Structures are given as C-alpha cells and as structure tokens.
C-alpha cells in the first residue's frame, strides 16, 4: 500500500501503535525495499563502515516503531517516498536515489526533504572531465535531453557542449542522428524521454554507426554499448552513508544537503573502445576506486 493513500498523519500513528522493538537498539534505522540486490549490497557496506549499530526494516512499514533518537536512512526511491510522507520530526538521510526521483518526490513542497541526500547520479562535470581526460580528440560533446529536464548542464574547459532539447513525444532516435553528425561524442544523461529501455537500442546503434562514443551514466549502460562511464557501485554509496549519519546525528547539517557520490569507479566497454581506437588510453583505468578525476592514470 502506498503511504500517500493513507495520509501522513495516519501513517505516523500506525508506526507508533504497532511498533517493532528490534529497531530500538540501533542508532540508525535503514528503511529499504526488499528483494533488490543493490539495496542489500549498499546496506552491507553501510554496516561495515558504520561505527554505530545499524538496523534494517523493510517496506511496507506496517507497525514499525521508529523511536525518536534514531537516524532514519531512506534507501531507494520507494523508501524515500514513504519516509518523506511520515514527516519525521527528526533529521533523516536519503541515499541510493536518483536526482530525478528526488525532484519528483519533493515537487510536493509540503514534504520535508532529507537533511542529507546521497544521489546515485554522478556529477555531469565528472563525466565530462573523464571524457576530456581519456578522449583527447573529443572536442564537441552532444547532449540529447528533454525540454522539461531541469538538469543543469555544466561547462568544462576544452569541451563544447552541443545541446539538443526534445519534446516528450519526440522520437529520440530520429533526433539524435543530426546531432551525432555535429559532435565527436554523445553524453548520455539520465532522462526517461531520451534514454529508456525502448530507445537504448536505437541510440547506441546510431552512435555506433556514426562511430561516436557514448559517455554513459551507469555501469549497465556501458555494458549495453556505451563507451565509458564514471559510476558509484551500491557498495561505494553504502560506505558513504555512514559519515553522513554521523554528521546528521551531530547536528552539523543546516540546510538540506544534496550530494553526489564522492568515490567512484570507471567502467569501459573495451569492444567499443577498440572500434573507436581508444583502447590504449582507457587500458587499466577500471582497476581502482577514485576520489577525483585527477587521480586517473
């Protein structure tokens, strides 16, 4: 059952009335959906990295008692949507949510945003800096993005960003073809109008036919056929939640904080790298975790 159908007040009352005492011993309680491997991986990493006991409760929260001295951690979009509607009076943290999900949930201005949110998304500056570093011949980068996508497109020295905005009902595959003729590479951004399960085949095939690399935004997108991407695995994100909990506990955070993952890996599709003649420049960059682009070999 979706919390919004119950109403925030009733939902909070139910939580108190049917409390589960297992959660009481912990100083942080992670709220997550059940059954997703990436949630489990993030939770395991959080528990390893945390100096305080971390308890896990799964959705739906029927009867869960979340006492006032615990820090709540909403893990994933479903958990965040639920926890935000509980209007908890104390600070809480959100993680493993996309920027777009965050915007959608808190378009409802009556909801109180988390004190700290750790997004899945890599900053676009990082993806572009990665391209700048590893693809020296790339000067013009194309971006296909919906008109209504509020994502801010950064500028990176040495790269021209050619942006093509399209309507919700546009055919992204038809729109990308003239763009591919103008640019040296395509930057994929999280946008359901452009990159979705129905368009990925056509977009990646079009880029391949034009021999243009796609800078992805996730590990699976690179495995599907994008050239490379910076990404944070669930384990990396989970490990970064622990210090956030401590900062929230200590009351160090004022205005809501929205963060991209600090640490990241790089994934490369070597088949595509070979086609594009960049195998040598991307060799060996997948072996470690980075804190900044400057650490790339």
């Amino acid at each position, binding site marked *: 059952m979706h919390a919004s159908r119950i109403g925030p007040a009733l939902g909070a009352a139910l939580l108190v009335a049917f409390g589960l005492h297992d959660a009481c011993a912990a100083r942080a309680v992670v709220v997550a959906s059940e059954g997703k491997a990436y949630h489990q991986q993030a939770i395991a990493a959080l528990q390893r990295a945390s100096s305080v006991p971390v308890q896990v409760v799964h959705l739906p929260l029927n009867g869960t008692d979340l006492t006032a001295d615990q820090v709540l951690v909403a893990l994933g979009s479903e958990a965040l949507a639920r926890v935000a509607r509980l209007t908890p009076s104390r600070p809480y943290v959100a993680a493993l949510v996309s920027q777009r999900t965050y915007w959608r949930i808190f*378009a409802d201005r009556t909801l109180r945003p988390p004190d700290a949110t750790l997004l899945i998304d890599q900053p676009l500056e990082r993806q572009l800096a990665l391209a700048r570093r590893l693809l020296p011949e790339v000067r013009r980068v194309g971006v296909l993005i919906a008109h209504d996508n*509020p994502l801010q497109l950064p500028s990176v020295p040495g790269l021209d960003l050619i942006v093509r905005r399209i309507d919700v009902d546009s055919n992204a595959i038809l729109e990308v073809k*003239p763009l591919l003729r103008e640019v040296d590479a395509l930057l994929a951004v999280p946008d359901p109008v452009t990159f979705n399960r129905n368009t990925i085949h056509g977009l990646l095939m079009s880029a391949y*036919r034009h021999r243009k690399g796609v800078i992805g935004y*996730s590990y*699976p997108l690179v*495995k599907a056929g994008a050239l490379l991407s910076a990404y944070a695995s669930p384990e990396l994100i989970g490990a970064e939640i622990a210090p956030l909990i401590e900062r929230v506990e200590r009351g160090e955070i004022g205005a809501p904080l929205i*963060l991209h993952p600090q640490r990241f890996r790089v994934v490369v599709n070597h088949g595509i790298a070979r086609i594009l003649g960049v195998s040598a420049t991307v060799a060996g960059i997948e072996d470690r975790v980075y804190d900044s682009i400057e650490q790339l070999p």
Partner: protein
Amino acid sequence: MSLRNRASTGAAWLVLGTLALPASAQELAEEGFFGDLPVVLSAARIAQTTVESPVSFSVLDEEAIRAIGARDVAELFRQLPGFQVGYFVGNKPVVTYHGLADQYARRMQVLIDGRSVYVPIYGGVPWENLPLVLDDIVRIEVVRGPNAASFGPNSFAGVISISTRHATENAGALVSVAAGDREWRSGVVRLSGEPDDLDYRLSLGYEEHEGFDDVNDSRRARQLTTRVDFSMNATDTLMFQAGVNAARNGIGEESDIGDPDRAQQPINHFRHLRWERNLSADEAWVVQYYFNHYELIDGFGIDTQIEVPPFPPVSATTDVDFDAVSERHDLEAQYNVSPLEGLRLVTGASVRTDEVTSEGFFGTDETLSNDVARVFGHAEWTLAERWIANVGAMWEDNDISGEDTSPKVGLLYKLDTHQSLRAGVSQATRTPVFIETRANTRFPIATDAPAPFDMLLDQTLLGGGELDPERIRSVELGYRLGGPDFDLDVRLFRDEIEDIISQIPVAFADDSFDGEASTFVNRGTAEVVGIEAQIDTEPSPRLRLLGALSYTESDVDDDDAEGSIERSIPRWTANLLGIVRLSGSSFMSFDYNYVEDIDWLDKRRRHAATIRRLDLQYSRSLEIGGQNANFALNLENVLGDYTDYQEDNVVEPGAYARFSVNYR
C-alpha cells in the same frame, strides 16, 4: 566531502512543477542505474575498427542512402568503387563488381540482416523482387574482394550486407508516396511500435512503372514485410522477419514468337528467425534459421505450321512453360568470443538445403536438390601493439561440386591510430547453380504429337553437367586513413579467376528452329589487376563528399571470339556523391557516375556504351500539423541520353518527387 560534488538544485526547483511525468514507467529510479539492460553492441554486432579492418569495405549510411535518391535498391550500388549497375530491361536491374556478369550476376553474396538472398535456381539476386522496402534500409556494408571464410559460399567477388531498421528506430507510422516519369509511382506505409519488450515493424509497399520506352518491361509490384524484435532478457533477443513480394513484370517482344510479349509473375517470400545471446562485447551466440521461396509463373504458346512432305501442313501450338520454384532452408550457428586479450574468434557451422522444381527449365518435374554443410572460423590476433593478423577458413561440402576449402590470411600494420597498411591473400569458390549444370530447356512441337510431327521446335538451354566450381585467388595491398570526418581507403589487388563458367552457343541438330542451343562450360582464366580508392570526407559541417574510383587491367585466356569476357570488366569506374547540408532540415545532393563501356555476358552478348550520369536532388523536412514531413525532388540523368545494358534501353533525363510524413 568536496563542495564541487554538491548537487545544484536552484534552477531545478523552479521547474519542479513541470515534471509532469507519470510516476510509473517514465520514472528513472535506481533501477535505471543498476538494473540490467540488453547488450546492444555485442561481439556479434560490432566489427573491427575502420583502421583495423583486414578487408576493403565500403559503407552506405542512412544519410548517403537518402542523398543518392534511388528509385530502387540496386541503384544504390553505383556509388561503390568498381561496381556496375545495369538494367537488362527496365524491370530487371543487375548489380556486379568488376563485370563478368550476365543478367543474373552470380558472383556476389548478398545478405539482408544476415540472410542470403542468392537464388539457387539461376544464381544471383532478384533485386527487382526482393521483399525489401527501400525506406527500411538503414545501412549497407560492402566487402570488396572474396571473403568466403567469413561470409560463406559464393562470397566470390564481394559481399553486400544490408541492414534494415530495428523496429525501435521507427516508432509511429510513415506514409510515403512518390511519382515520376516513365509513369513511375511508388507508395510505402509503415507501422512501428514498441509495446513492452517487443518491437515490431510492418511495411507495405507498392511500385509500378512502364520501364524503357518501346520495351515491354513494365512492372506492378506489391510487397509486405515485417520485423519483430523481442528482448527476452538482458542477454537474449529474438528477431523474426517475414516478407513477400509479388509482381507482374512485362517481358518479351510482340514480334518474337520465341519470346512474345507477356507478363511474368515472380513471387518471392521468406521467413527468418534469429536468436542472439549477447553475453558481452566479447562474447555472443547467434543461431538463425531462414527459408526463402522464389517462384516464377511464366508461360506462353507458340503457334506453328509444320510441313513434313508429303503430308499436308499441320497447325500446332507449342506450350512453353517457364514456371519455376526455388527454395532454400538454412540453419546456422555462430559463436563470437575473445578468450584472450587481443584475440577475437568467430566460429560456426551451417547446413543448407536448396531445392528447385521446373519442368520447363530442367525437362523433368522432379525436384532437384543440393545439400550444403559448412564449418567456418576466423581469428583476429593482435600480435603486437601495431601488428594484427587475421586468419580464417571455410570448409564446405555440397552435392554439386563436393568438398572445398576457402582460406583467407591477412596482416595489418598500424602506422598510428588513424592509418594502417594491410596485405591479404584469399581464395573462394563459386559452386555452379542448377541452371548451369542441369538445364534442359526444350520445346517439342506438342507433347503428344505423333510421328513424324513429334519434332523438337527449339532447344534453348543445355546444362553443362559436371562443371568445376569457379575459383578466385586474390592478393590485396591496402592503405586506410580513418579519422573523425575523413575516411580514405586505397586498394591494390590482383584477382585470378579460373574455370569461369560461360554461356556459349552449341550446335544442336535436333533443334528445328535454329539448329543450336546454348550451354555452360568452364572456359577462360581471367587475371584482373587494379587499384581502387574511396573517400568519405566532410571538409566543412555543411558539405560531405563520397568519392569512388576504380581502374583495372584485365587479361583473359581462352576468351570467346569477341573477347567479351575481358571486355565485361570495365577499366574505369568513378562516382562522386556530394551532400550539401543547407540547414538542419534541408539538403541538396549531386551524384555523378562514370562507367566505361563494357560487354554483358548473356547468351547474346550485349555491348553497353560508356555511362556518364548526373543526378541532382533537393530534400526538405518540414512540420505539418505537428508531424514530421519530407519533400524531395530528384532530377535524374541531367547530362542527356545514354543506353543501358543494350541498345533498346535508352535512359533519358527524368525526374521524380517524393513526399513522406512520419506520424508519431
């Protein structure tokens, strides 16, 4: 945590209210970052980089295909180095590479989405009757030179690989109509959709024209093709295609009692099922089965007056029946893997059965068959940073010519990331087709005529029996310069073709019409030496040029009396396609084609004069009622008349217009 990683939200909050996406499938939640996606560019789909390619290949991409402005698929190949496109009659296009062709041009392998469309009965490709809508073609890749090791039997002179659009590339509907001189009219309706993991495309096409002036070569054709792509999971996809093309083609002459004017009805249909398991960019399985059916309905009667003294003259009608059915079943499995860094392997096997039935062509109502089995393998091995070796071979066993092996070896040296030199040696065979070995095309006065009237009116074709397969050995040196907006390929080659199968006249005493028939023999050895160059460049964002040039010197031993085999190989061919992008929504193009005079090797040799042809096109996209529309005007052959294939085929300046609307 550094400040630079702080996500910016200021502007985003201002537009939150506009994020009106339904909070369901449109939402990009964490599943969009961590959930599995289908592997699109797998080992089965990606090839070598341009600079690392061990062969000479040419590409016609979507923009080039549109800019050529062809009325039919065959016309596209004028663009390629060393290619000739002719029209035996207006409804019978012929495509060949380095000549050596009659109207069936049997020395090219043509694949559509991996399916061979070679017709076993005559050989060659029925370009005019392929179930293939021109608007559905998204890319054509052409390997010039023999490549049986990679593409299978009959990849003799070259391989044309045509890719049609994946259904997701066309979501919505397309309506396209075109009309031009020669009473040419064409229409296409295409519907595409992508419900869940299943993508479909359905294309309906119609075409009609009157062909050349004063030649009975009109054409009325309808076709229906469909393609369905189904993503079973992140690694497995199924593709199913089916199609049919049914036509009514004018043929023959009113004054020729042996080939009177009439209408042939070819029917060509196919089914193609392909399963791909794309494990990664380095590993993939492909298993496919297809069935091709080609059928010809054609027949006429010849009224004759038989005089056998001392009997009075007797009238009789000879029934000529050219009905024919040709079928192919093919099952193939292929495995692509990169087991070690720098080593890529492709291995596979296939079994094929070809069956043909035609009492008119073979003098029997029995079905003739040819079973083919083959095993193939190809390895690309990066020996050192700059050196890449390619080794491949195909072993084949078929009922017509027995066992054969086609090897290929190549070595490539990368001068830098944009340039490479390559050397290669390859060998391929062309198995004789049924018409060449088993033809027995004869027309008795009447099947039940009593003696002495049971004479043979005409024996037109006689199979050559135990013919040897044609063999080609090719040596190639190549240079490739590939960059973001520049691609140059230069190829020096020497092809030696042995046991050329030629159609020649032969005396036939029982033939009461002209006393001769024609048959097929292994005759002649050709040595073709030449240089080819192609360039694809964008000197400015508004201009793209695709050029092709080919020069050959050929020498044929044991040629026919006229030297036609040698003369069938053109010395010079050239093409220049220019695309001027006037804006994002409009372009102009020019396409110049030059082919030096050649002979076509039909039973009666045809001499075709030098072709100099220039086509111009203007194309503009516009929005009508919120839908994307496109208008194109084509002026063809603006330099004036030329004769194509034979003297009756006069190509005059022409024009046509095309209008299309894409509905979303």
